[in-house]
């Protein structure tokens, strides 16, 4: 017990020392990368799903790279503040960005984005967290097919909650409405917490959010779950059909996460980061925690920086028409 405490205290002291060292600019630049701690900017608040993914991966990467990988939360403006900060950072591999699907949707959501998606080097995909379509407890429709029919017939009565403009739940809702071909009353909240509160309390009807946020409520029977939004069923929620099984052909959305470095970072550094990320995605602890979150590491054939780049471009193109059709902008 005491040993563990001492270790935690040591970790704290080391962390502080590392932070102090990080403040000395240009120290030991000539040495092999990484010569000093690496900061991974998460453009959302600490404790959220993206932060959780980042901290799990960072812990493992710290072991592989032999340098502290520190997670720094720079929230605000739907993730664009943190991303913008990294876009302008020195391309030396010591300031990185870990962002989710918002990296691909921001260019369409924000008309005055202070940076471009091309301002980053892609360092690899991490995980694609599935989403679930859920409803308030006791909601009438029984299956996903029923929901689709019900929504079409009663579009004036159905309310859809989301965690705010540009959030994953907002994106999933837009895609769902465009797939069903109807517009529902959208009720935005500031974050998933209050939205979930109103869903469990029966104030709103439907919501689609990451398994990270919904699995506890689904298993506890506090909400009604209809479907998962991935191509295949999700292991941790095996009873739930996919949206496609429910009749929405080609409906697929997942909150995918990727690691980025500022544009101009050398390919060697990117390769080193990608390799360390690959080790993290094989780390049994990371795999186990991802499973708790209802997700899995990206399969090996989707882990290269090149695949990440192609995928990012494809996602930007996929969301542009959906967002433009919905006519919502975040600025």
């Amino acid at each position, binding site marked *: 017990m005491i040993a563990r405490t001492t270790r935690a205290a040591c970790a704290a002291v080391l962390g502080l020392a590392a932070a102090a060292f990080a403040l000395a600019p240009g120290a030991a630049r000539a040495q092999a990368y990484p010569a000093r701690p690496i900061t991974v900017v998460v453009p959302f608040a600490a404790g959220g799903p993206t932060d959780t993914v980042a901290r799990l991966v960072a812990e493992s990467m710290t072991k592989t790279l032999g340098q502290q990988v520190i997670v720094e939360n720079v929230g605000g403006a739907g993730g664009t503040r943190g991303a913008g900060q990294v876009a302008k950072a020195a391309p030396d591999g010591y300031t990185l960005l870990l962002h989710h699907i918002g990296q691909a949707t921001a260019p369409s959501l924000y008309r005055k984005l202070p940076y471009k998606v091309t301002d980053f080097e892609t360092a690899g995909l991490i995980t694609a967290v599935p989403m679930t379509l859920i409803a308030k407890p006791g909601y009438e429709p029984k299956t996903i097919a029923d929901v689709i029919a019900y929504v079409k017939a009663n579009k004036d009565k159905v309310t859809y909650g989301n965690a705010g403009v540009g959030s994953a739940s907002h994106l999933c809702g837009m895609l769902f409405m465009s797939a069903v071909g109807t517009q529902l009353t959208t009720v935005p909240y500031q974050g998933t917490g209050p939205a979930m509160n109103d869903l469990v309390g029966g104030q709103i009807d439907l919501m689609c959010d990451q398994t990270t946020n919904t699995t506890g409520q689904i*298993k*506890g029977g506090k909400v009604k779950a209809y479907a998962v939004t991935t191509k295949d069923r999700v292991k941790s929620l095996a009873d739930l059909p996919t949206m496609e099984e429910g009749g929405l052909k080609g409906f697929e959305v997942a909150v995918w996460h990727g690691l980025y470095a500022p544009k101009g970072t050398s390919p060697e550094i990117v390769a080193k980061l990608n390799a360390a990320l690959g080790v993290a995605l094989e780390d049994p602890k990371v795999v186990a925690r991802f499973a*708790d979150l209802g997700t899995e590491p990206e399969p090996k054939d989707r882990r290269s920086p090149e695949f990440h780049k192609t995928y990012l471009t494809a996602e930007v193109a996929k969301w542009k028409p959906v967002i433009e059709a919905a006519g919502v902008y975040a600025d």
Partner: protein
Amino acid sequence: MELLDNLALGFSVALSLQNILYCFVGVLLGTLIGVLPGLGPIATIAMLLPITFGLPPVSALIMLAGIYYGAQYGGSTTAILINLPGESSSVVTAIDGHQMARQGRAGAALATAALGSFFAGTVATFLLALFAPPLADLALKFGPPEYFALMVLGLVASVTLASGSVVKALAMIVLGLLLGLSGQDIYTGVPRLTFEVDELADGFDFVALAMGMFGIGEIIRNLEDESQRSLVAAKVKSLMLTKDEFKQIIAPVLRGTILGSFLGILPGGGAMLSSFAAYSIEKKVSRTPMRFGRGAIEGVAGPESANNAGAQTSFIPMLTLGIPSNPVMALMIGALIIQGITPGPNVVTDKPDLFWGVIASMWIGNFMLVLLNLPLIGLWVRLLTVPYHVMYPAIIAFCCIGVYSVNNNTFDVYTMALFGVLGYALVKLDCEPAPLLLGFVIGPMLEEYLRRAMLISRGDPMVFITRPISATLLLLAAVALVMVLLPAVRKTREEAFKE
């Protein structure tokens, strides 16, 4: 007796050597960051997250929880001593607490805060143990119309925060509402009143605003007058409460505890609203309301009990439903997820050691806090004798660090400086900053809930009246409005006749 078994389990977990240690580390850290202006539990818990990875989940949560409610104890210290509320919930404590300090009664004010918080923490912990699931269900009955009605009531009550002119208090509330409007509209994403400044996309930061208006404004004012530069004008009297003072605080502590326990369950600012509400109630029920704002001990006892009770009961939605009621709870959920526990309704049954262990640790933590804080009072009071030219640069430095740590953004530090100047100007004009801050907090929520309620009801305003809880709250607000305005109208008439 299932409850006794559960509590026995809880205490067996919480009383292990390791967990007592983490509980102590948590409350000690909480007290420290509460005392340091600006540095709040959110920044601290975020910094400590990586350390909790190596701990067992129960120990991690016990420590993080300790930081949170420990900060509620510590936050009142700077509010009382140097008129600098470090937490939103200690804004009202500053009103009468600092006046008490200026009269040499800092010890009594600090003791009141510590004892009131301990009593409230104990009661709220038992409420948590006995009624957590039904209380969580009650919180779920609160939909957007109910919250809107609650905010209206809060806004009406905020007029009583001012001890001076009602007209000036109203002006301050409106100014606060206006400042609160700045930032992105959450329903459409349209930026409002941001003047093309990117940093204003999320509006002004509360901590920067509060510390500027109170802390920096107060420093400028103290510096202008040579003779008033010492923090306490009068001699420091006894450090403990007198028998009379003790009798005086019993009823306010009880009222604050009940109010705070209830409002704390409600997600979204409930815990903070409770301290404002407790102050309003104390002033209303007092036979001598004119003492408020001039060092009334009830004005410290009620709000301090309320905010600590609220901090404790705000764990209810998180522990029973897995729904975070404020950003600190969201962080704790994040910590649990990293530990491999998905917070949700099943935690109570699947992980009884976690649920009951944390509850038991809260009582132990509160006990430690009162043991820790009472002896510290002497030390804090002695701090007041430090010459002001040594104190104020230190205060400013801590304010800057604290404000910066909230969002890691230098813009917030400039914001604080700007509002410091505004705060000074307002003091000169005899306008009080507390109603402004309440307007700033309530304004955006009022709008958010109103528009959400209207969205869900499809534009039918009857929803506020047909729902019983909302109708009752609005009725209370109407009664409160009449009660607030009547004496004011009479007074103005009397004044008019005098002339």
